[in-house]
């Protein structure tokens, strides 16, 4: 069954009034995700842009319970919420820990791994802007190779840690990648995650204009190029069965990389290196873009 935009609820359970920057990819992801998750959802977000933009003083941009938690603990908090709901016999509520790439893959990794191994009935969403944006854009494990960050002016020299592979190594039942450029795909995946009574992991690419050095109106377009060039594969693994959920058109990776300020130092051979890697991954002919 393919989802249509007509099937989505009109109401926005996250979005209006949020304090994100123009074109904030994380906020777009939040709005899309809530179309899938619905009003009976509790969201816990650790220190990050998303926590900051979600509300201040007596305002909140969420129409569902939202708790801004500590940096390391969103999955553990979510596990505790789930335990309390179980103890009270409340069975129809989605419990979501929603963290940035640092709150997921770096400082938050221990509690995430714990919740995944225990197979707690929560959904962990990583919204990935590939840097520590709330503290000005430093390098983290999700920063891609060669990207310039606020504390690595010459670009990162190691690869992006493959979080989906790591999460799948926990033996979890559902894991998926997503992108704000493909909202129906993203929403369908979160619906699948919400329908399960076990741990699910969804990793969303959410460009950030400041960190990436792109115009504010290009977040969605750049995310789409990441998918179309093959660098950001959209797929899911459901009970061990892997499925690519969108076939990219394989535009040259240069079309994705070149417009971004964070890749401005990339030489032609480095771009070719990345193109070759994509070609190898998708078993495409050498040299062909």
């Amino acid at each position, binding site marked *: 069954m393919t989802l249509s935009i007509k099937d989505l609820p009109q109401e926005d359970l996250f979005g209006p009034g949020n304090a994100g920057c123009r074109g904030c990819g994380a906020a777009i992801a939040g709005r899309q995700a809530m179309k899938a998750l619905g*009003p*009976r*959802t*509790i969201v*816990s977000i650790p220190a990050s842009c998303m*926590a*900051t933009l*979600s*509300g*201040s*003083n*007596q*305002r*909140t941009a*969420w*129409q*569902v*319970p*939202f*708790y*801004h*938690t*500590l940096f*390391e*603990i969103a999955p*553990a*908090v*979510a*596990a*505790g*919420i*789930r*335990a*309390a*709901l*179980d*103890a*009270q016999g409340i069975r129809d*509520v989605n419990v979501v820990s929603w963290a940035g790439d640092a709150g997921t893959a770096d400082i938050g990794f*221990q*509690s995430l*791994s*714990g919740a995944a*191994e*225990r197979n*707690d009935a929560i959904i962990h969403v990583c919204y990935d802007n590939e840097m520590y944006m709330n503290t000005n854009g430093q390098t983290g494990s999700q920063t891609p190779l060669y990207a310039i960050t606020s504390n690595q002016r010459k670009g990162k020299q190691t690869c992006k840690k493959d979080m989906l592979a790591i999460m799948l190594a926990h033996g979890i039942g559902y894991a998926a990648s997503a992108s704000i450029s493909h909202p129906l795909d993203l929403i369908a995946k979160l619906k699948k995650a919400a329908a399960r009574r076990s741990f699910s992991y969804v990793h969303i690419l959410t460009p950030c204009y400041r960190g990436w050095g792109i115009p504010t109106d290009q977040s969605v377009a750049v995310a789409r190029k990441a998918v179309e060039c093959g660098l950001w594969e959209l797929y899911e693994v459901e009970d061990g069965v892997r499925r690519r959920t969108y076939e990219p058109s394989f535009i040259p990776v240069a079309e994705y990389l070149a417009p971004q300020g964070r890749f401005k130092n990339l030489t032609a051979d480095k771009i070719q290196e990345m193109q070759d890697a994509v070609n190898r991954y998708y078993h495409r002919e050498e040299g062909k873009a």
Partner: protein
Amino acid sequence: MSVMLLTGSEAAAYAAKLARIEVLSYYPITPAFPAMERISKFIEDGELNTEFVRVECDHSALAAALGAALAGSRTFTVSNSQGLLYMTEVMYHVAGLRQPIVMAVANRALSAPHSRFPEHGDAISQDASGWIQLFCENNQEILDTTLQAFKIAETCRLPVMVNYEGYIQSHTQEEVDVPEQKAVDALIPFNRIAALDVNNPQGINTVTGPEFYMDYKYHQNEAMEGALKVIPQVAREFAQVFGRDWQGLVEGYRMEDARHAVVAMGSLVSDARIVVDALRNEGRQVGLVKIRSFRPFPAAALRSMLSAVDMVTVLDKNIIFGAGGALGNDTKAALYGYRSLPVKSYICGLGGRSVGTREIRQMIDLAENRVEQRRDYEWFGL
């Protein structure tokens, strides 16, 4: 009621069971783990209907407990020493969010050097965290105080630590009167407050500017000050039902006509009672003030206990480096400006160094025989 032979760990576990905790979360550490395992056994044996979150670290243990408390469940955890330090960030957060989590702490010395032996340094490290901290002198008090802790926590909307020393208390059996479930249910009924509730969505811990932060902190501190009334009130209610009166904040032992008061908390108190009895038999006018509530610090109650004595000796099983013992410092601060009294402060029993009746008596003698301490505090038993 039935009298059982219980360790301090078991006493804490029985209290958690009697309180009908809904969610339990802990991460193993010595010497707290027997209390943890005992509760898990209650759950596995079907004697306790509690959700257990088996976390991967101490920090997550308190985080999971916090999530459960925010979602409205009565929640319990256990820890000590390195576990408590690892939790510290969450400790402050729980208190700021005013969540009534109860934690049993089997006090143990902090590393380095590595030690697994008792002292109060771990609890003292959390003195500014916003947790109510109660100290117990024996296993009966551990059980009774843990039960009272739920009522105190849920009344004040503040987290409570129930402290007892590793091994000396956690692993030593004593006779403990275990109350009837029905009587406990009547004393500590659970009034559910869920901050995270899909039927009443709220934003929790939104970014707070200078226009609000200080006011939150004021109210948090007012709640702590309010606990100075609630703790004795709960102790009285408890005494009415169970006949055991732990007195609330402080307890004076043989303080009538005392000239010299010994101030202490935790396991030192039960030994100090024996010493005071012996000294009284010798005609010496020595009394004991037990500090039961270390946070909030009962300055006014302590002052009135000490209103007629000529000198005070404070025993501390902790050291704040470069500043002295926590209880010594707080006692001096409480008295300052009210009475000009010699207050002798001893650091003793760190990392399991033995302090029994003999050592307590030696400190009392030292305090009486030496007019000036070499420093504001002295080390005893090096």
